[in-house]
Each structure stands twice: as C-alpha cells, then as structure tokens.
C-alpha cells in the first residue's frame, strides 16, 4: 500500500520535476524531448480531471435528488441545464446556433449578473467598514478614495489631481509593495516545489 500510495507518486514527481528543471536551463535534446512529452501528458491528465469533475457533479446532485426530491429544485435545474448543454455541445457542436444561444443568452448574462452584484456588496461593505478609526485606517481610506476617483473621468472633474496621484500610488507605492510580495512568493514557490519533488510535501500526495 505504501508503495502505491507514496513511493511511486514521489518517484514520478521526482523524475518529472527534475526533467522540467533541467530542460529549462540546459539544451540536451533527449531531456528537452522528454520534458515536452511530460507537458503534453499534463494536458491529457487535466482533461481527465475535468471529466472526473463533471461526473462528480452529476453524482453529488443525483444523490441529493434521490434523497430529498422536494427540496432539490436547484439540483434538478443544475442537472437539466448540465445535460442539455452537454448534449447540444456533443451533437450540434460548439459553433452551432443552439450552443451559441445558451452561451450568449444564459451563460454570459448570468455570469455577468452574479459578478456585478459585487458592486452592491463592495459599496455597502466600504460604507460600513471604511472608517478612519486610527491613523492606518485613515491612510487607507484617503488612498482608496483617491484611487477610486482617479480611475474615472467624473472623479477627475471633481479632484483634478486625482489621476496624477493615482498613477503615483499605483506605480511607486504599489509597485514597491507588490515587488516585495512577488519576490517573497517566488522564493516560497521554489521551496514548496523542491519539497514536492523530493517528497517532503506529504499533503500533495494525499497523506496528512
């Protein structure tokens, strides 16, 4: 069991990881070819994962409908739309009129509508939580307001210097902070990658 659950996955990760690293830094034809082959496998594995996800969604919602049909309206709707979209995609194709209808008149409007609700939630959250209770909060408040006004033409009319200050905040203050975060994140990323390659990151292999 240990061999299948831990040793083989670690060995696969080690070989694949080392090949990718060597491929990036050196021009060795055989290694470059293997690395490209492995990257193509990733695409295939990801497609299988996508299929697995779809099957899982079906299983979860079918179970819900079977257990409590009267309380599973959302699951029933999900299953219907799921099956209709897949059937049309498979039979008529993604460029077909019915599929495009689903995309243009159902997927895009609902996706945009849900996302646009953020404007309302963020607005009320900012109104309730954005209070200058101390110096740090006051700095954040003033900076946030300048950037919000500097990003829109009407804000520019109200405070003419807002765009200039916004550019300075974004290109000086923000870049300095972000650069630190990105470099620290990258170092952490390298460390975690090394731990995964040599098998120290146990959670990656499904071991707690």
């Amino acid at each position, binding site marked *: 069991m240990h061999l299948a659950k831990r040793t083989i996955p670690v060995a696969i990760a080690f070989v694949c990881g080392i090949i990718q690293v060597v491929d990036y830094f050196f021009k060795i034809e055989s290694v470059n070819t293997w690395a490209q082959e492995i990257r193509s496998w990733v695409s295939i594995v990801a497609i299988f994962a996508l299929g697995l996800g779809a099957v899982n969604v079906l299983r979860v919602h079918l179970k819900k409908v079977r257990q409590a049909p009267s309380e599973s309206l959302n699951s029933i709707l999900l299953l219907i739309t799921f099956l209709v979209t897949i059937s049309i995609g498979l039979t008529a194709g993604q460029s077909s009129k019915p599929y495009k209808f689903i995309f243009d008149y159902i997927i895009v409007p609902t996706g945009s509508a849900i996302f646009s609700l953020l*404007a309302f939630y963020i607005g009320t959250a*900012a109104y309730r939580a954005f209070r200058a209770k101390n110096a740090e909060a006051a700095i954040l408040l003033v900076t946030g307001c300048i950037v919000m006004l500097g990003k*829109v033409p009407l804000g520019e009319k109200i405070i003419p210097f807002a765009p200039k200050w916004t550019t300075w905040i974004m290109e000086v203050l923000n870049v300095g902070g972000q650069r630190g975060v990105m470099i620290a994140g990258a170092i952490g990323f390298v460390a975690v990658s090394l731990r995964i390659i040599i098998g120290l990151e146990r959670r990656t292999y499904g071991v707690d």
Partner: protein
Amino acid sequence: MTFFEKVQNLDKRVFYLLMALAIAIPTIRPIGLPVTITSPVKKTFDFVESLPSGSVVVIGFDYEPGDEIELSPQAKALFVQLARKKIKVVTISSFPVGPMFAEECLKVLKDAGYQYGVDYVNLGYYAGGESTLAAFAKNPASIFSKDWHGNDVASMPIMKEITGMKDFAMAMTLNDGPTGGTGTHEWVRQSVMAYGTPFIIGCTGVLAANNMPYLDSGQVKGVLSGLRAAAEYEQLVGKLGDATRGMDAQSIGHVLIVAFVLLGNLGMLASRRRRSAGGEKK
C-alpha cells in the same frame, strides 16, 4: 437615534437603489465624459504600433463571463489596431468559455477582411494551465492538432509560420486571474522569461496592482487594466464602443461609493465629537 447615527447606519437598500440608478441611467443615456490617456495604455498602443506589418501575435482569452465586460472591449479595441496594421492573430484559451469570447471579438478582424486560417485562427481551449502553455510555447502543434471549429491546424497557412513562442512578434493575455486558468505570472514565465517574446497584459481593474511591477521592470511592454484602459484604447484607435459607454456608469458608481464612505466617516466624527462634548459636560 440622532441624525449622525442615522447617517452612519443608513439602510443598505437605499444604497442598492442609488447604485442601481447610478449604473442604469448613464448606461441608457450616456453622458460622454472625456477620458484622458494614461501612460500604461499609451505604452501598449505605441508598442503595438511598432510591430511590423504581417507579423503574427498570440492572444490568450483567459477569462470567464463575469469579467467579459472589462476584457472583451480591450480585445476589440486592440483588434482594430491590429487589423489596420495587417497583423495576424492566433488565439488560445485556458478557460472552456474563452474560445466563445475570442470568436466574438475576432469578428472585428473578419469585418476588416481577414481570412480565417490565413490571417487569424481560433485554436480553442487547452487544459492544464502553465504546463500546457509551456508545451504550446515549445511546439504549438503538440497541443492543438485541430482548431476550435475542428479544422486541421497543420494545413493552415498561418500556423506554417509558427514553430513556437519565439516566432510570435507579441504575446498577450486577457486575464481575470489564475483561478481555473493560466494567470499573468504564468504567461510572463512562459513567454518573456523562456523565449523573450514581447508581452502585453490585459487584465481586470482589480488585478492592475499585481501586474504593475512587470511594467516598471520592463518585462512587459504594456498593461491594460479594466474598463478604463479599454475606453482609453478605443480613443487611441479612434473607434468608440462599449468601454467608452460603460465609463459613464463606472464614473458615477465610483463617486457614489466615495460619497457614501465620506458620509459614514463624517457621521462617525460628528458622533464622536458629540459624545466627547457630552462627557465633558457631565
């Protein structure tokens, strides 16, 4: 409850109603506020302008429906410029819905007389994020043997010019973040760092802060962030569209939020002053 306490705790439905009106009215009756051009957008425009006519660029449609309103207008404005310069376009996507957005935006090229398979191609969706993008960068044919419409990619004249990322005059991603797709950092690693291909980022407004360091360091040639950048780009290419119309609604929305934040703070300050004055009296 005093007036100041009321101001601090207005019913959120009042805000919802005002916000709905602030967005709906300018969308129905645009005001046409002028948009000034910012330096990241001008840099992007100037770089695209410097590309040789007839070269090929690759553009990633890495976003989902929620961010379509910010990113599709960027793509359409950019395509107007690419069409004028007769630059060929290859599109790919790390989201299943991405090719549909690409198809919609590519109509700009079709209307400009571009021929499918010769001047532009929509290769479609790829799974696997950065690893697959890396494989595409090394050898596009290893990932896409068929395009999004099911045509054979190898036989297309446009793809005969391309053996890898190094052959593209420019790479670009229209990106709403790394969740579920290929993010901007991954694109930088696989285009700029690995092959030195000039790169441009088109991202949502909230991602602007994350991507500005790349522009400052010179690793990317330009950053377009949010609807504002799209509106500026529409002005630069001289074809106003959805982004310019949307800016009016965004303008009033932002001002409304700032006004409410200031109102809440004024209420808080006034209540504090009132409380401390009351305390002194006691």
